[in-house]
């Protein structure tokens, strides 16, 4: 059973943001199934308000800044332990702590974030008729996300579970943080 939620939001663009995150959610499922060739079941994401959905400690976060008519940060996060299991499954490796698994965790999460976040930002732009420039995805700290969430003018966060094989579900979060330029200008 999947649990997901939207944190915050206020404007008429809310439905666009939510739809874009849901598109990213579907893309994540497609990546797991068709790129990683994993047997995975994604629950249908639910949308509700729950401030506890911000990334927890020991979570890997991939962020991609975007800039255009709006600016902000798109991010994807999953627990480090889930990422380790994901990489082991991708490699067909039984030892989650092997050197090869550990060496590929960062690049796997970055690749996952790259595909999902590009689709989310492109979907937002397509729906709003806007074009964005965006950065290469990079790993960022949970503290950095917390600060951005706190300072955001709007924030949209979807979180849910993906069941890979018979293992514990992988907890995935996808978020959009919109930045208020006036807050940036005045610190």
């Amino acid at each position, binding site marked *: 059973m999947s649990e997901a939620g939207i944190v915050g939001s206020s404007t008429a663009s809310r439905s666009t943001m939510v739809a874009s995150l849901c598109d990213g959610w579907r*893309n994540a499922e497609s990546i797991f199934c068709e790129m990683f060739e994993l047997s995975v079941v994604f629950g249908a994401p639910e949308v509700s308000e729950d401030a506890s959905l911000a990334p927890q400690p020991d979570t890997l976060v991939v962020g991609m800044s975007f800039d255009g008519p709006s600016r902000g940060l798109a991010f994807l996060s999953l627990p480090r332990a889930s990422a380790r299991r994901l990489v082991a499954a*991708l490699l067909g490796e039984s030892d989650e702590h092997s050197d090869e698994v550990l060496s590929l965790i960062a*690049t796997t999460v*970055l690749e996952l974030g790259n595909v999902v976040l*590009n689709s989310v930002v492109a979907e937002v732009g397509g729906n709003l008729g806007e074009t964005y420039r965006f950065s290469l995805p990079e790993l960022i700290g949970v503290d950095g996300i917390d600060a951005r969430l706190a300072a955001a003018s709007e924030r949209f966060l979807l979180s849910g579970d993906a069941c890979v094989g018979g293992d514990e579900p992988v907890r995935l979060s996808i978020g959009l943080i919109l930045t208020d330029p006036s807050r940036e200008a005045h610190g």
Partner: protein
Amino acid sequence: VARALVVDDSRVGRLIVARMIRNAGWAVVEADSGPSAMQVIAEATPDIIFLDLHMPGMGGQDVIRRIRSLGYSVPIVVLTADAQAETREACARLGVQAYLNKPVRQAMISELLASTPAVPS
């Protein structure tokens, strides 16, 4: 055996695409950067190139320009997460054979390779 070159700075990105290409019965060579790709092209004469766009340093579009300026006519398939129309159009103007958005699927790769004639060596 026909040979494909996969160019991607992400090791996992290369691993995934290379596996799909091998599943389709092709051999694979890999490069993790634009300059490395240019070296492989000169030495290994690939029959098709699968190219990531957003790489540090020499990006995918620069690689395409460089390949064409050197007179290579090898088919180039862009594989990217960049879903923006203007990027797709820019690559079309550079003469790529196909522009595939990630996530890629085995069927997409297999169909593309099936329609790609190998260059006689």
